[in-house]
């Protein structure tokens, strides 16, 4: 999976579904923690190096799609991927969000309180 690509991803086991745009590292960490495994236990189950799993989880490096699937399966999950039409963010919403992210958390809260007239 290359950085910058947008996928809709699903980590699935039976009735559990999760739908959010996320990184491969987040997906691996969530699958591992949901199944109650440590990185060492996932390493043992998947046959992958523990330090490499840590790097994947931190998104320092990105696993191949096949490796990602193997890791998720070792946690008891599977990966479903669906192509969906790409909708670029609305430019005005994007600009507003960028401005908000340039503020501190305190400034964001105070801007919201001001906007609601409080």
């Amino acid at each position: 999976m290359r950085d910058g690509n947008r996928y809709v991803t699903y980590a699935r086991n039976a009735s559990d579904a999760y739908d959010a745009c996320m990184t491969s590292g987040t997906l691996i960490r969530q699958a591992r923690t949901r199944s109650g495994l440590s990185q060492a236990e996932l390493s043992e189950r998947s046959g992958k190096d523990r330090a490499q799993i840590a790097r994947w989880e931190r998104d320092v490096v990105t696993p191949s799609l096949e490796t990602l699937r193997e890791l998720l399966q070792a946690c008891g999950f599977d990966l479903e991927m669906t192509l969906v039409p790409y909708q670029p963010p609305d430019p005005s919403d994007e600009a507003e969000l960028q401005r908000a992210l340039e503020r501190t958390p305190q400034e964001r809260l105070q801007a919201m309180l001001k906007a609601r007239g409080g």
Partner: protein
Amino acid sequence: MAEPFDPYLVLQTLERHRVTYVVIGGLGRVIHGSTELTDGIDIVPSTREENLRRLGLALEELNARRPDGKQPALERDLVGRGVLELRTDAGELKIVPEPAGTRGYDDLRRRAVREPLGQGLRPSVASADDHARMLAVLAREQDRPALQTMQRVIELEHGLRRGLYMER
């Protein structure tokens, strides 16, 4: 006219009573960068007995009332209930012991970050990933814009983190 809402008063009261909790919901998303408006605070408290006792004292000080006007009794009101909605002198306060898609306080606190909000407050706020996770699991149409915003925040934050790694 907007309903009274003073998140500083609510958070200061919780801090004064040394309640352990994580902020979630609209206020949490605003702190992460969402530009939505909100009238209240949603918190996930630790459900340990001592913490619920402290939370009860804080609620008493905030003059918290259930929708039926009665005072909340946490140990009774939190059992089998997804959300305990309260009105306080400082606005709405929702107590959510186990938000959808999570295992409650112990699950959220690991990725939560203490965010400086001024007036000496640094409450623990659930991560953007966890906010997206909760909204995704609820799968409510009205939450779609908030979910999209959180997803974009995650992408941008991830981009920033990746940039930092590259600079090292």
